[in-house]
């Protein structure tokens, strides 16, 4: 990849490590990643720029979660090109981790610690002040009793909000959201949209996967379709185009569980 810029520092940086008009935040070319002997990613081509929101759709097993995990540096890319924030993942897939935020299927919380303690741990791990965690908890509505309740006693949706608070507090340059709407109530889903908007306005990039296109397409600039560990199609999202103005498209047969979604 021509001219990628190394991060140059491992210290917590501003939310965007790669300014606009520089290297893309995500640049994958023919990227292959193995889960055991199985190719979880079988030659992915994808780029994502600062301030952009890209939605990944596809059937179960298409490689969406693997793509997000590869971007987070949790799944090593074994061949092809894979650059995240100027870091070559094929050379060192761990170096990028502190600069990305992954919201996976399971909230990474310790059940015995309170919501506030979990967020504070995530924040202090980066050397950020605890106040950043407190602000994020307030932003996510985790105040009063909820704030001091052990995470193990929270509902799935509340745990997801705590995980989101940790992500918001860490201000990553790249947000990786795997089924972010799952388990959230209507108000939290709306808040998630606001948070994504604020993050990209702040210079971050967002890559999300979803089986709920009616919620996720309006948040995205682009929609990429995955199948068999590859990107098989790209379409415009609804963030800049009103959803109603986009023609309804039936998903391909292997995406049958996704319902109808709108693309340009």
């Amino acid at each position, binding site marked *: 990849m021509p001219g990628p810029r190394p991060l140059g520092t491992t210290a*917590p940086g501003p939310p965007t490590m790669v300014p606009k008009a520089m290297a893309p935040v995500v640049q994958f070319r023919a990227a292959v990643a193995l889960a055991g002997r199985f190719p979880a990613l079988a030659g992915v081509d994808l780029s994502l720029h600062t301030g952009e929101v890209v939605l990944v759709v596809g059937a179960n097993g298409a490689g969406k979660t693997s793509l997000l995990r590869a971007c*987070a*540096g*949790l799944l090593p890319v074994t061949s092809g090109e894979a650059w995240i924030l100027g870091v070559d993942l094929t050379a060192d897939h*761990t170096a990028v*981790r*502190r600069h*990305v*935020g*992954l919201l*996976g*299927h*399971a*909230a*990474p*919380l*310790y*059940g*015995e*610690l309170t919501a506030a*303690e979990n967020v504070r*741990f*995530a924040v*202090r*791990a*980066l*050397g950020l002040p605890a106040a950043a965690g407190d602000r994020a908890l307030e932003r996510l509505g985790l105040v009063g009793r909820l704030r001091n309740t*052990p995470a193990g006693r929270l509902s799935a949706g509340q745990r997801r909000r705590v*995980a989101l608070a940790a992500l918001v507090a860490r201000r990553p340059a790249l947000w990786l959201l795997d089924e972010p709407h799952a388990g959230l109530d209507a108000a939290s889903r709306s808040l998630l949209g606001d948070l994504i908007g604020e993050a990209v306005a702040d210079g971050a990039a967002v890559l999300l996967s979803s089986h709920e296109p009616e919620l996720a397409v309006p948040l995205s600039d682009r929609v990429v379709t995955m199948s068999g560990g590859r990107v098989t199609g790209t379409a415009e999202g609804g963030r800049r185009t009103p959803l109603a103005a986009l023609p309804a498209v039936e998903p391909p047969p292997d995406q049958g569980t996704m319902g109808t979604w709108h693309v340009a």
Partner: protein
Amino acid sequence: MWREAALVAGKDLRIEARSRVGLWQVVPFAVLVLVLVAFAIGPDNASLRHAAPGIFWIAVLFSTVLTIQRSVAVESGEGTRDGLRLSGIDPAGIFLGKAAAVGLQLLVLQIVLWAGVTVLFNVRVHVVWLAVVASLVATIGLACAGVLYGALSAGLRVRDTLLPILVLPVLAPVLLAGSKAWQAALDGSSSSGAGWLRILIPFAVIYLVIGIVLYGPLQEAA
């Protein structure tokens, strides 16, 4: 790295304090080991006094396995292992923090066991510094080796049954040297006890260094 180690140790100790697994399971288990082995040896006071150091360290060793299993289990929850890898904390800091948390729990346990041994076996430590130093150094070795092997077994479905098989033979030198050093401390023979420290100290240093270097790769492999 030290700031991160303190962060991880504080987190693990807070979790243990809340779960009370150490208080209600590990400590009673260790005391049970003391009592049961004492039953097996019989009521002969001389035999009990002679066996006291070995029984003490066997109880510590078995309890170490339980404590390590807890330390691994804390990070095996859905999402938490990935969360720790994505936290930005240096793996060496994670290793040191987890080892410090395990070590502190083992030290508290040893204080309880020391009291138990004194009461049950009617023994008295004559060279206190030797017993204390032996305990401190052995605890560092136990915690470092245990956390390292805990990371090795972390990703395995059979980790709970595999960990004792992996770790107990590795910890055998601590059992031997710790028992001998404590025997010397009971007998008042500081010179012979100091010789056993020469086994405990390299053991602790080697596993401390290996852990700092290898914990990251092991974490990735698991």
